[in-house]
């Protein structure tokens, strides 16, 4: 190991490749950070692995969630250095295991659109969902989108009433802004000609969305992705977006992508648990433990799931009660509730219902209006 890293040139090469690999995995590594990393390596004349890792940790990564990606990438690349041939396969395998399956699907979809048989060969049981979503999105009548946006806007406006410390200039009413009036008077020779007013600003609500993307929710996934994208792109809320099947992942940044296809790509790259089993309890536990501070007494938590849980119900009960004690309110959106004869009998649903402030249907983009009505009170 030492003999490899002793050489500065090799270290440089290694580091640059690592950055490239990290970027491929969706970790944003800026040029400024790469420069800092190089300078640090030069400065410390690093000779051992631990220190190298430490420098990478400090300079290349800027959020805790990315540490895992760094270690994975590091190990993969190291294998590559030790036995170049084996590693190419390993990376391919790793990619396939991770999010790569999705990407592969993308590529195969692009390259072999005239060969429909190939899809099932590449990864059986795995639909070309992200591409389907694009189509679905196009299929959704465009006239629905403004209506949905309007519903969202109404929801946001009504709900954006949390008092805030920050104040804003007001025309005629509110408190007198002495400092502002004073400032204005400077241009009139120190004469206060007009009082300036200010009033407290209302802030955007904090929203945490936890969305179930497991197998049982598959039919609604198009709605889900559209909903999450609309909500994120509208920027009405200060929000964090999580998705889960057997594990929970924070995809806030990915959902904030500029365009819908870009968002699909980013989301697909970062989450590989689509259509897995449902472990709501474990997901809420991760939310409570790993992302605990995200939920504050000002936060409304919106959980979108059908409540078919394959995990530990006791755990679910405990974690829901913990979440309830920390959040402002919990809203459960269940796509099944849209069916006329539905009753919340699924074990998971029955457990969580007592902790939910609201329980509403969510099977089409129109149910946004219901959400708006409910949140707006």
């Amino acid at each position, binding site marked *: 190991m030492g003999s490899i890293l002793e050489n500065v040139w090799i270290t440089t090469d290694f580091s640059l490749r690592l950055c490239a690999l990290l970027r491929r995995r969706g970790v944003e590594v800026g040029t400024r950070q790469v420069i800092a990393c190089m300078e640090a390596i030069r400065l410390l004349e690093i000779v051992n692995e*631990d220190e190298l890792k430490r420098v990478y940790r400090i*300079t290349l990564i800027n959020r805790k969630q990315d540490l895992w990606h760094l270690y994975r990438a590091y190990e993969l690349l190291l294998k590559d250095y030790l036995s170049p041939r084996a590693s190419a396969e390993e990376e391919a395998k790793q990619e396939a295991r991770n999010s790569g399956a999705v990407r592969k699907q993308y590529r195969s979809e692009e390259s072999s659109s005239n060969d429909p048989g190939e899809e099932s060969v590449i990864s059986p049981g795995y639909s070309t969902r992200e591409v389907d979503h694009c189509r679905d999105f196009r299929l959704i009548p465009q006239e629905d989108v403004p209506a949905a946006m309007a519903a969202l806007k109404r929801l946001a406006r009504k709900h954006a009433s949390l008092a805030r410390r920050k104040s804003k200039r007001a025309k005629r009413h509110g408190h007198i802004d002495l400092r502002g009036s004073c400032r204005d008077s400077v241009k009139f020779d120190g004469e206060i000609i007009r009082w300036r007013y200010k009033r407290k600003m209302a802030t955007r609500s904090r929203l945490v969305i936890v969305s179930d993307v497991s197998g049982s929710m598959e039919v609604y996934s198009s709605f889900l992705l559209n909903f999450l994208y609309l909500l994120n792109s509208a920027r009405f809320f200060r929000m964090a977006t999580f998705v889960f099947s057997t594990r929970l992942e924070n995809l*806030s*940044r990915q959902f904030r992508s500029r365009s819908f296809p870009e968002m699909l790509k980013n989301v697909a790259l970062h989450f590989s648990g689509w259509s897995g089993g449902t472990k709501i309890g474990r997901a809420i536990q991760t939310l409570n433990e790993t992302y605990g501070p995200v939920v504050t007494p000002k936060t409304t938590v919106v959980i979108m799931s059908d409540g078919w849980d394959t995990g530990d119900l006791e755990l679910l009960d405990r974690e829901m009660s913990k979440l309830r004690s920390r959040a402002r309110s919990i809203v459960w959106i269940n796509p099944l509730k849209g069916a006329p004869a539905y009753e919340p009998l699924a074990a998971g649903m029955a457990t969580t219902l007592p902790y939910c402030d609201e329980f509403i249907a969510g099977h089409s983009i129109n149910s946004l209006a219901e959400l708006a009505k409910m949140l707006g009170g």
Partner: protein
Amino acid sequence: MNQPYNDIIAGLRRYDYVADADIAGALFLAEQLNKPILIEGEAGVGKTEIARVLAKLKDTELIRLQCYEGLDCNAALYEWNYQKQIVSIRLNELRNNRELSIGDLYSRDYLLERPILKALTAAKRAVLLLDEIDRSDEEFEALLLETLAEYQLTIPEFGTIKAQHPPYIVLTSNRTRELTDALRRRCLYLWINYPSFQKELEVIQIKVPGLGAALASQATSFVQALRRERLNKVPGLSEAIDWAKALQSTGVRVLERADVEATIGCLLKDQHDIRNLKETMVGPLLQKGGHGLDP
């Protein structure tokens, strides 16, 4: 380990701060590369303390800005001294001289320095602590970008003020919201975990010297075991120190169930946790630490 790291660790140790190689590495690189450090970690693991000790180590001033919602340019960067400007205009009128120009009114004399400007204009490299940056608004982060990247500040009426002695900038965050990428990219990153047994024991012995070695080790293993339990609010290092102090002041010699129950308010801050602990956990936890005395 590298010599510079050892120097920093020893330096921090002189001021009662037990650092590991990660912390030393981040401080060393921040100084050498002239970059701010963003520190994240669970509550009470000593994030803010790093800035405080760094200021002592460098024998310089600690300029602290506690962030909160609604924090703006006037409170964080600079403000014009309007009252003084008005008084000057009036005096100028009364004395009937025409010496005062607009340029004079917007000069250094009329500028009120808020923490960030103060840190940039300090005569010596100061330590600027932006505490709990996640509590400020996202818009506020944008105000900081120029300072974080260039160590300068542009005031429209005045011009650009560039730091002669760039301060050490330390940002801390409790992750109540995701910080923007723009801010993160400009900083070195340091994640601090809950301390290991060795580190925690060392800290407790330093901070509470009167506590006997046996009791210190017993208390530490209790806290370490407690952190592995399911709690609503996991105790940090600072709570552990408080608890050790409480144990010392109540004259405990050997940790027993009654002592734990009497002083548990220092360690756990959630009623549900305390009830759980009293009902089921104290005995097993005392045993887990290898000091089962009162099951």
